[in-house]
């Protein structure tokens, strides 16, 4: 088990209250807090100022690599051992479009998943306080805090409308 991170865990029932808390925390200059929710939510994203995920680059680069791999594989393998079948050209584009397309989708999809995994690992989730209700209907905000800053954070989240506030480790 990862070592628990000390901090404040606030539990919210209402979306607007959670958004208010996020905005207040950001106004206070806090950036490294974690927000939990059961489903993605545009209001939360807006409050957090979420920008577009770079996972799309993985999709684009993976897709292009796959397409080029399709071109390279079919042409090289056809020319490596030229077999004349039915008088058709040895290496030709129309039948090979199938491979270009399939490999584009295959490698594009697999690199998207790889991108998702890698990018999700960029921010730690282990050791942060968590409550099972976050995968149900509650919204959670965990703010790492040491010493006296905890009480100020507690005041901010309570003012915004947190239904429960816990001090973690």
């Amino acid at each position, binding site marked *: 088990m990862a070592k628990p991170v000390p901090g404040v865990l606030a539990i919210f029932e209402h979306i607007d209250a959670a958004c208010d808390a996020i905005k207040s925390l950001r106004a206070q200059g806090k950036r490294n807090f*974690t927000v939990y929710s*059961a489903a993605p939510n545009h209001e939360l*994203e807006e409050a957090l100022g979420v920008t577009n995920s770079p996972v799309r680059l993985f*999709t684009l680069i993976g897709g292009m690599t796959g397409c080029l791999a399709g071109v390279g594989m079919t042409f090289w393998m056809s020319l*490596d051992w030229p077999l004349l079948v039915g008088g058709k050209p040895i290496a030709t584009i129309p039948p090979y479009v199938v491979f270009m397309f399939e490999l584009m989708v295959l490698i594009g999809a697999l690199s998207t998943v790889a991108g998702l995994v890698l990018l*999700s690992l960029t*921010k730690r989730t282990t050791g942060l306080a968590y409550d099972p209700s976050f995968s*149900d209907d509650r919204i959670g905000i965990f703010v790492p805090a040491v010493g006296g800053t905890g009480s100020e954070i507690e005041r901010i989240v309570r003012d915004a409308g947190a239904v429960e506030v816990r001090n973690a480790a």
Partner: protein
Amino acid sequence: MTVFAVMTAGLFPIIHIGRQWFFYWLLPYPNARFLWPNFKSPLIWDVFAISTYLTVSTTFLCVGLVPDIAAARDKMRGWRHKVYSFFSLGWKGTDNQWRHYTRAYLYLAALATPLVLSVHSVVSWDFAMSIIPGWHGTIFAPYFVAGAIYSGVGMVLTILIPLRKALKIEHMITDYHFDNLAKLTLLTGSILFYAYAMEYFIAWYSGNPFEQETFWRRAFGPMWWAGWTMIICNAFVSQLFWFRKIRTNLTALFVISIFVNIGMWFERYVIIVSSLSNDYDPYAWGQMTPTWADWGILLGSFGWFSMWFLLFARTFPVVAIQELKEMIPMPRLRREATDGQTRPRRPGNLRAHRRGL
């Protein structure tokens, strides 16, 4: 359902290649003779199309399941908690996870959607690229795509109607969904209607006696019963969905969906058996009689699909929990700042949300 259906579909080429232990000869791998597959052969297109389809559909399913498995994990105790914890891959629903997840899931969906068109087109080219009468038609790709969606929706209806009742999820899957599924059946059924008519027209217009004979035999030859079952179940029965009352009547939908399944099974039977049993050499003409092994393979494929589907329905959420939660408006402490009221609002139900209430 897609994943289990493709798993079943993938078994059939393996069963039919004869020497199953050499199935890997279909893949381009460096071998002792420096030989590569013939990339102009539709059989190799099919290997790539089906393996890509299986991999991408499985990936899409697994990625979609991760937040739902995490939700199940948080409700479980004991050994079940441990198992679901393992498969939830450390999902906690943090803002960073959702940020990448929503985009990645969108791109996976965008990649998987054209794959549906490609896989059925490639399967149709397995037939259309040959010169067998009844198969050699340019209409095959759209015809197979429409047929695949038509039979897919039929199977969804057959499974969903009893499953919805058994799992008591009537409030999640409503008349609205069934109405739309029925409309999709009507659209694709009408495309099939057109395709059947066009096949007969092309056979007549081509002036090719072999092509004409094949289609004549499909309607009036020894396999007339299969040909007419296909046409009636696919082209005509789906036309009942012009009536709203039928589209929203679950009993009617279930019965029609059974006809759709029967019709689409016969479509494949007619295409494969009628063309192969009567091609260019009249000396080789004959009738196909299924043996006990054929029936066994058919029954086994039903069992194989049902086993995976039921195991899935027993173990994982059958409705995407997080997608449903995304649609439901979250409760608010205060109304929007514009009206200045502070009365808390109850979370609206799904149907009210959909109507824009």
